[in-house]
């Protein structure tokens, strides 16, 4: 098993020890008339982890696909991508087939869709071994089982005979990693390998990658937007912006020096804490008592599986003027609880009242609004912004004509857009602008309670910082009560006074935000805080000669 492809890669490693493992030089890429990459250069040594970081659309993934030789057909690339001294760019597809999977392995962002749903996981891993002629069928299956075990999938619980849909996201990502490292490639490319995963899973997968790189002496190109991940895992860092690399160097060095203003801006945004005025809490506004939301279990044969309790006896109180955070991992029931508070879910137990009235009735609806996660799915694409923003007026006596236009204009101005934007379609706006429009829609009828459901999770770090500022400013100005739901602890930290931690349908810990962060009581809160990648605030930049 250990000899799989070992001879080949071993020779290369010895003879080319001096040359960098990966040497990308003057790489430019266009798709049609659009310049995607412009003169990209980077190098990676064996055993090294290089982080390629930057915001979405900066060209990180295209650099990875170019290295894999898997660019879209419409793309044309110039420059060179040398692996162990050999330029891959001019190679024909047939020659690249032999190298992909054997010399370069790749791990993708979306574990949910990266595996073929029709094949068993063991077969999919074995395929890498067989396609490169390393093993016969039986040996390959044995090898695949060992590889799956090596990536941390316990054969007693997750045998190779499982299908992808039977695995969680983290488990699937382990399968993808097993396929990528099966031939002990010299280079491993990991494209946002943990972005789609929960924070605790994320830490495990990153540790696994670290260990595999060390054990096999691979070089890893780690693509991530998350500076905290970079700081903890990368030896060197390359910062990418609009298709060019603006800064590169040893991780600690780059984070300390921040020669390029863009690096500085990214780092600032990562540490950004919006200014939140001290709370002036009043009496209780929202009171939930022993809330239960359960679904009937799946039908198994003629019986039913036990019911699933998405929200399991949750009680919480939000005082007037309070800003409360609710954190938990995916599937913990926080979204269901949110919809229940909005009066959109039938309850199987307990009560939720707003100022004494049960939620879901028209008077309570008028007093609370929500901002949702997906900036692209939150708006009816057929309607113009003016109509979208004024939708909540459905609940009140809607103002007519001029007053309505005034209200729309005010709402848009308040979130930093212009009144003229009311006439445009939603297609014309970026993700950040769309979240501003969503906030305008939520605030137009002056609700007392606003629920932000993962409202900044889909945004890039700099945009996120600005939207958090806006939220903090507006909640302060209007004395809003807010409930901020997120899976990301660092986001909640800056905009809330009090924090609730949710796990498996229950609230396991609550307390003032600062003290929960400083001294978590419940083991799960500790686990969440430990798992979250941390970015130590670097000292202020040294002043350099002008």
């Amino acid at each position, binding site marked *: 098993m250990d000899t799989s492809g070992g001879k080949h890669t071993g020779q290369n490693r010895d003879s080319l020890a001096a040359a960098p493992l990966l040497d990308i030089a003057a790489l430019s890429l266009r798709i049609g008339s659009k310049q995607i990459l412009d003169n990209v250069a980077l190098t990676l040594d064996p055993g090294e982890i290089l982080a390629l970081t930057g915001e979405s659309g900066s060209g990180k993934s295209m650099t990875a696909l170019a290295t894999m030789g898997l660019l879209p057909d419409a793309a044309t690339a110039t420059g060179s991508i040398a692996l162990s001294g050999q330029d891959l760019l001019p190679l024909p597809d047939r020659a690249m087939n032999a190298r992909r999977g054997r010399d370069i392995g790749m791990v993708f962002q979306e574990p949910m869709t990266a595996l073929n749903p029709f094949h068993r996981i063991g077969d999919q891993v074995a395929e890498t071994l067989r396609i490169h002629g390393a093993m016969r069928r039986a040996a390959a299956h044995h090898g695949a089982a060992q590889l799956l075990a090596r990536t941390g999938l316990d054969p007693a619980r997750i045998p190779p005979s499982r299908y992808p849909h039977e695995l969680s996201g983290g488990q699937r990502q382990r399968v993808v990693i097993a396929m990528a490292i099966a031939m002990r490639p010299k280079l491993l490319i990991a494209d946002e390998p943990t972005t789609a995963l929960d924070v605790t899973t994320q830490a495990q997968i990153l540790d696994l990658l670290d260990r595999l790189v060390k054990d096999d002496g691979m070089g890893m190109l780690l693509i991530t937007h998350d500076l905290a991940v970079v700081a903890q895992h990368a030896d060197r860092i390359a910062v990418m912006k609009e298709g060019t690399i603006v800064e590169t160097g040893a991780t600690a060095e780059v984070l300390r020096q921040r020669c390029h203003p863009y690096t500085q801006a990214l780092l600032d945004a990562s540490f950004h804490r919006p200014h939140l005025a001290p709370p002036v809490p009043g009496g209780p506004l929202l009171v939930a008592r022993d809330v239960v939301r359960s679904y009937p279990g799946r039908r198994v044969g003629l019986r039913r599986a036990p019911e699933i309790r998405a929200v399991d006896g949750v009680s919480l109180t939000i005082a007037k003027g309070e800003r409360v955070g609710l954190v938990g991992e995916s599937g913990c029931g926080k979204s269901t609880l949110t919809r229940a508070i909005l009066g959109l879910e039938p309850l199987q137990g307990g009560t939720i009242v707003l100022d004494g009235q049960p939620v879901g009735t*028209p008077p309570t609806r008028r007093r609370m609004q929500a901002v949702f996660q997906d900036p692209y*799915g939150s708006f009816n694409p057929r309607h113009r912004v003016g109509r979208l923003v004024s939708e909540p007026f459905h609940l009140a006596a809607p103002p007519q004509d001029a007053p309505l236009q005034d209200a729309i204009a005010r709402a848009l101005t308040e979130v930093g857009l212009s009144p003229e934007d009311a006439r445009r379609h939603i297609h014309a706006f970026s993700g950040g602008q769309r979240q501003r429009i969503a906030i305008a829609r939520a605030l137009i009828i002056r609700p007392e309670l606003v629920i932000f459901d993962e409202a900044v999770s889909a945004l890039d770090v700099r945009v996120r910082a600005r939207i958090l500022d806006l939220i903090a400013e507006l909640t302060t100005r209007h004395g809003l009560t807010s409930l901020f739901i997120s899976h990301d602890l660092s986001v909640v930290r800056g905009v809330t006074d009090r924090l609730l931690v949710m796990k498996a349908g229950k609230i396991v810990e609550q307390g003032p935000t600062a003290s929960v962060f400083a001294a978590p009581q419940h083991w799960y809160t500790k686990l969440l805080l430990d798992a979250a990648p941390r970015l130590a605030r670097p000292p202020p930049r040294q002043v350099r000669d002008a």
Partner: protein
Amino acid sequence: MKTLALGALLSALMIAAALASFIWTPGDVTTVNIPARLQPPSAPHWLGTDHLGRDMLSMIMTGARTSLAVALVAVGIGMGAGVPLGLAAAARHGGALDEVIMRLNDLVFAFPSLVIAILLTAILGPGAVNAILAIGIFNIPVFARMTRGAALPLWRRDFILAARTAGKTAPRISAEHILPNVLNLLVVQGTIQFSLGILAEAGLSYVGLGAQPPVPSWGRMLADAQTMVALAPHVAIIPGAAIVLTVLGLNLLGDGLRDRLDPRLGPGAT
């Protein structure tokens, strides 16, 4: 764009022919002129004459009326009943209403339109109304399923959540948010069902379950032509070509519209 233009042109041509036939046709389709039968295309008869000596061009023009009317009304029946059913099923997804609507759909699907036509003929006797009903009934589950299928993912989108937060009811959300977003698909499906309707009408008339004499129809022209094929191929070729061109035109129109209205390309994008 070429697809759309060609499709629109062919469809417009057939509609124009059908409409023109109300005012004017080159010859009279009710007058039998046996001595002039089965003439090949010539200057006085551009498309020749049929086995009763009638002008083929006039027959095609008047036949277009029947084909288009039957298919159009059948699409109307299918949409009129199918779309509200599909919207209701999606709004009550997983509920009893959804289940009932979908099972009824399955039941109707089990009756091919030819079988429905056969049964209807047993009651009503053959005729164009028969064809309309048979094709129309068969269209209902087609539109209901399509509407439901397109509406379900929309119901899971955040903008529906926002509308519910604004206190809007399911019927109102269906009308205001769901319907406009499935309209494109409905238009495309409508042209497809329209063209399928023309094919079905031709088939039913051909076997004698559709329009009856003296109403001219392309399908019956083909049935009449069958025994004359060897003598005068044009009587068989021309009505078939008319069907092919119409259906082709409508299909191209549908494909063109689909590309044009694709939300990913976004016609409303400014």
